[in-house]
């Protein structure tokens, strides 16, 4: 049997003395799209950041295997060149660093690792233009600093653009649909769909069933209080929409105990 693209076992992570991920188990196979939902503060972004290698969070237990290799042993840049990509919930503005220059440097780091030739500025521009069409991004963004002065929706599109350029194996999209208008949502969803492929896995974090109408997930997981409280197929998202997160939440008394698990 081949390894799944991603296998997370009993992952626990904390910041200072606050435990945020309290035992996550998750398997995502190549070609699959999994959605993660869950109330604010349940730990979705923390999971995404831990997978991308954010050092703010200390992993205290568990393991993460990516294509069979120990993901947690890698630095963020090693993960990126190995094909992990996380679209940020809050993309960072970096004044003074050109959007395209940055992306070319990133792409060349990835290509070098794959044994491919680096792209020069001209070739890269042609390549990037192709990908920009995918998310209907305006050419004027090429001349600007990374995310600087971008509107909320433009930042999200820029994330998908970066994903399209970097061509990852495992993509984690953290609320890429939040803050998008209806048209932009469709554009981003189309972008995501066009990147769906048998050798790529995606984890889509979202609060809205709406995105999942466009990007139909193979599995839906609901996080609550640092754990995956329920998993199901796409109908789970619909059920949540109807009943709210009360569907998955532990009764308040049980929450403080921390050890109970259904």
């Amino acid at each position, binding site marked *: 049997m081949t390894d799944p693209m991603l296998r997370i076992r009993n992952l626990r992570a904390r910041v200072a003395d606050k435990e945020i991920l309290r035992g996550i188990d998750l398997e995502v196979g190549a070609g699959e799209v999994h959605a993660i939902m869950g109330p604010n503060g349940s730990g979705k972004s923390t999971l995404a950041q831990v997978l991308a290698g954010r050092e703010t969070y200390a992993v205290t237990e568990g393991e993460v295997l990516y294509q069979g290799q120990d993901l947690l042993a890698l630095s963020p840049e090693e993960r*990126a060149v190995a094909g992990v990509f996380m679209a940020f919930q809050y993309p960072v503005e*970096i004044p*003074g*660093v050109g959007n395209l220059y940055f992306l070319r440097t990133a792409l060349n*780091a990835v290509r070098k690792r794959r044994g491919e030739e680096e792209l020069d500025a001209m070739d890269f521009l042609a390549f990037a233009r192709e990908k920009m069409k995918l998310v209907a991004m305006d050419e004027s963004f090429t001349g600007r600093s990374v995310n600087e002065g971008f509107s909320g929706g433009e930042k999200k599109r820029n994330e998908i653009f970066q994903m399209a350029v970097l061509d990852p194996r495992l993509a984690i999209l953290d609320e890429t649909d939040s803050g998008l208008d209806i048209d932009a949502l469709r554009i981003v969803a189309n972008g995501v769909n066009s990147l769906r492929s048998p050798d790529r896995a995606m984890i889509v974090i979202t609060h809205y069933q709406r995105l999942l109408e466009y990007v139909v997930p193979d599995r839906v997981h609901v996080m609550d209080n640092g754990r995956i409280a329920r998993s199901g197929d796409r109908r789970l998202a619909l059920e949540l929409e109807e009943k709210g997160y009360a569907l998955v939440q532990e009764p308040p008394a049980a929450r403080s105990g921390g050890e109970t698990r259904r």
Partner: protein
Amino acid sequence: MTPFDRSLREGFSLLRRHGGADPMPALREAAFARFAELGLPTTESEDWKYTSLAALAEMDFVPAEAKADIAEELLQGLWTPPVDGSIQVVFVDGHHRPELSSPAWSSGGSFIGSLRAALAHNRDLVARELARHADFRRDALTALNTAFIEDGAFIHLPAGAAPQSPIHLLFLSTASRGATLSHPRNLIVAGRGSQATVVETYAGPPEATYFTNAVTEVVLDEGARLDHYKLQQESERAFHIALLQVSHGRDSRFNSHSLALGATLARNDVRALFAAEGSECTLNGLYMADGKQHLDNRTLIDHKSPRCTSRELYKGVLDGHSRGVFSGRVLVREDAQKTDARQINKNLLLSEGAVVDTKPQLEIFADDVKCAHGAAVGELDEDALFYLRSRGLGREAARSLLTYAFASEMVDLIPLAPLRTRVRELVTSRLPDRESLREAA
């Protein structure tokens, strides 16, 4: 008596002895006497609170050879004329070297060449301004420079003159016979409505120990405009102290870009005096230090007259165990109504061991003015670092790129393209992952 004092005394008596044709013995004597009274400043003095010259006091300097050899590589690496026909005046250990310089440039009453030559031929013009602006009574190092004036650059632009090419003043030290000491003294007199770009570069061979104590006086007549660049690239063991003193005539403009990269200890003073109405000055500075470097930047903008505008932006990048100092004073005197002054200092600390002292001072005695100032000290933004790394940039590359982004604002402010390119190279050469930054901008 410190070893430094002793070498000064010896040096001074040597000057006195061979100074038969010395055109300004009285000035020399007065300045030396003043230095003797003031002594080398200590950290007790408010002006030198953050910068100790104790290491300098222990140095024993030898007089420089008049014709020390200079390595061709050093010259080459320092300057490639950015524009055809650029005018270059070269000094080695304080001595003018005509064979390395462009021919003395004098056309239509302009003069660009050595101060010594100008003193011989046009004494009155020099004497009218020399030491009238940089006050040696107030400042020990200026007194020292004045006492030891031997040579430097003299630029005189008559009314309306506007040399097309930048004027490059290159000051090299060789330390060929041991630690040497030089006192370059420059005078720039810009007549009514004249315009020029002047670049001062200070450099020496790697690891050489020497002391450069420079003074530049700039006198701007009505409507004159000067763009001034200073590239301080001294050896990592050198001491560098310099004063740039600017006197603004009516409606004149002065832009200063100071780039401080070298020296174990450097102190760069820039003082602009608005002596008449309607002038503008912009003081930009970038200092980048690592190891145990100490880079001190001090500025004074004296709004003595109404309707003048000043803009100041200094940025510091401090790594290793280096220390940066910014102390900028904007003085708005009682008569200086309609002053518009803005001063900003920003610092980036790249290591635990790096320190910066920033002291912006705004003193306002007029009531109808627009003034603002601010200072900031920060580290690289962790979120931005992670963002870059999460896309595949290595840690060093990400740090370098963010550092470059911080510093590049100062580079982008340089209007002269070839010079901007040159400064960009100098800045990136200071970053750990310079390779990946070659095309950053």
